[in-house]
C-alpha cells in the first residue's frame, strides 16, 4: 500500500469519528471501525452521510485501496494487545483538553486535543436491527437516558428506525446537547427494515436492565407496525 494508514484511538465520546470526518473534507478517505462488535453506529452514520468516505466493514479490502485509510479503534479495545497486520501505520490519539500522561499519550505517535469524553467503565450495547420505534416514546426514552434517569450516563449514541420509515442518528456526550441527524436512506415502509440500527451507552453504575426494558416498550409490535405503515404509504401516495 502506498497510501497512509492511520489508527485513531481515544476515550469514548472524545471526538474520534468527528476528527476523521474532518479529514475527509478535503480529500477522499477510507474508514473502518475496529472493535465495535457488530454495533456499527459510527460506520453506518459515515456510510450514509459522508460520500467522500469509503466505509469498510472488512479489513481484507485494505490492500486494494488508493486513498488514506483511517482505522478507528474502539475505546473498549486494549491498546497493548491490539495487533494490526501492517508494517507501517501512524497512531493518533484524541484526548480530552486537560488529559496528561494517559495510556493514549504513551501509545500514540501524535496527540490531537478533542473534547471531554467518557471516563466510566460500564458499556452497554444493543443491536436493534429490525426494531421500529414510536418516535414520541423514543423522545421520552432519550430524554430520560441523557438526564440521568437510569444512572450516570456520559456517552450515548444510536441509530434508530422510526415508524414513518426514516432512520435517525442520535449522538450525546455529557455536558453537550444531543445531535440528531436524519440519515440519508430510503424510507423503510415494507415490514421490518433489514439495515443496521443499534445503541451504545457508556457511564458508571447505570441500570442497563431498565434501559433495555424501556427501549423494548418503545418498539412496535408487528400488527401495529403493519397498520401504521399502511397508513403512511397511503398518505405518501402521489395522486394520479
Amino acid at each position: 500500500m502506498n497510501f497512509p494508514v492511520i489508527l485513531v484511538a481515544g476515550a469514548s465520546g472524545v471526538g474520534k469519528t468527528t476528527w476523521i470526518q474532518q479529514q475527509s473534507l478535503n480529500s477522499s478517505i477510507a474508514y473502518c471501525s475496529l472493535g465495535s462488535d457488530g454495533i456499527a453506529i459510527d460506520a453506518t452514520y459515515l456510510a450514509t452521510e459522508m460520500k467522500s468516505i469509503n466505509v469498510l466493514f472488512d479489513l481484507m479490502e485494505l490492500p486494494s485501496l488508493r486513498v488514506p485509510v483511517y482505522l478507528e479503534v474502539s475505546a473498549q479495545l486494549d491498546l497493548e494487545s491490539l495487533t494490526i497486520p501492517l508494517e507501517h501505520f501512524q497512531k493518533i490519539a484524541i484526548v480530552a483538553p486537560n488529559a496528561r500522561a494517559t495510556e493514549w499519550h504513551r501509545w500514540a505517535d501524535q496527540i490531537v486535543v478533542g473534547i471531554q469524553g467518557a471516563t466510566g467503565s460500564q458499556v452497554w450495547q444493543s443491536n436493534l436491527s429490525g426494531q421500529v420505534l414510536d418516535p414520541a416514546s423514543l423522545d421520552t426514552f432519550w430524554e430520560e437516558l441523557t438526564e440521568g434517569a437510569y444512572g450516570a450516563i456520559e456517552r450515548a449514541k444510536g441509530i434508530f428506525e422510526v415508524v414513518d420509515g426514516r432512520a435517525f442518528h442520535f449522538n450525546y456526550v455529557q455536558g453537550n446537547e444531543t445531535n440528531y441527524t436524519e440519515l440519508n436512506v430510503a424510507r423503510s415502509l415494507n415490514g421490518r427494515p433489514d439495515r443496521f440500527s443499534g445503541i451504545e451507552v457508556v457511564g458508571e453504575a447505570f441500570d442497563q436492565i431498565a434501559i433495555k426494558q424501556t427501549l423494548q416498550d418503545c418498539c412496535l409490535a408487528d400488527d401495529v407496525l403493519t397498520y401504521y405503515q399502511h397508513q403512511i404509504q397511503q398518505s405518501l401516495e402521489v395522486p394520479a
Partner: protein
Amino acid sequence: MRTAVLSCIHGNFEALNAVLSDVDDQNVDRLFCLGDLVGYGPHPNAVVEMIRSLDIPTVQGCWDEDVVEGLNACECSYPSLLAEKRGRQAHEWTNQEIHPEVRAFLAQLPHTLRDGNLCFVHGSPHSNHEYLLPEIDAFVAMERVLSTGADILFCGHTHVPYVRSLDSGELQIKIQQSKQDQSISFTTPLKRIVNAGSVGEPRHGRPNATYVIYDDSTDQIALREVEYDYQKTCAAIVEKGLPAIFAWRLSKGMEFAERADDPTHICER
C-alpha cells in the same frame, strides 16, 4: 370569601398534607377539589380518606373515573406507546391497591360542581378527559365556559396552572333564511378559565405542588406553589412496587406518563 381549589393529587399524600397546611395559613374560607385523587402515586387510599374526612366538595377526575369504570381512553390520554404502557401499569397497580369503600366514594363523585358564578370540573365541562390547554382556540375556550353558565371555570387535568381571561367575548351567529341573511350577535362579560395545576404530579419542571386561591372580594386569583418532602413520595413509589421511573420523573417535575400537547385535539371518549 377566599376559595382554595386543588386538583390532581394522584395518590401523593405528602404533597396533599403540605398543601392543606399551606391552605390553613392563607385564611381560606372553603376548599374545592377537581379530582384525580388516585393514579400513579403510592397512597391512593390515604388521599381519598383525607379528602372524604375533611368533607371537601370534589368532582370526579379521569383517573377516578377509569378506576371505577375501567380503561377506555381516547388517544389523548396516551401520547406515546411508552406512556400507554406506563399508564396501564399505574392503572393496574391502583386498581388492585384501592379499598372497596374508596372505589365506592370515587364512583359517586359528580362530574361538575357549581357555586354561584363559579364552576368546577376536572378536564372540561364536556369530559373528564379533555385537556383545556392554555393555548386552546379562543372560540372553544369560550364555548366551554358558556356551556356552564358560570363566569369562572376552574379545571385541572393539564397539571400546569394558568389563568386565561376571555375578554373578547363576542359571538356572532349568521342564519340564512330564504333570501335574507339574518345576523345575531351578542357579547358576554369577562370569562375566565383557571387551571389549578397539580398537587401530586406537577409538570412545570419543579417537584412542588400547586393550587389556586380565588378571592371574590378582590376578584383576584393567586397561583400557589408549595414545597414539600417529595423524596418521601419517591421512596414510597419504589417501596410499593410502582415503576422507579415515576419517582425520577416526580423529582424532576415531569409528568409520569400522560402529557397533553395538542391544543386542537377534542377528546372522543
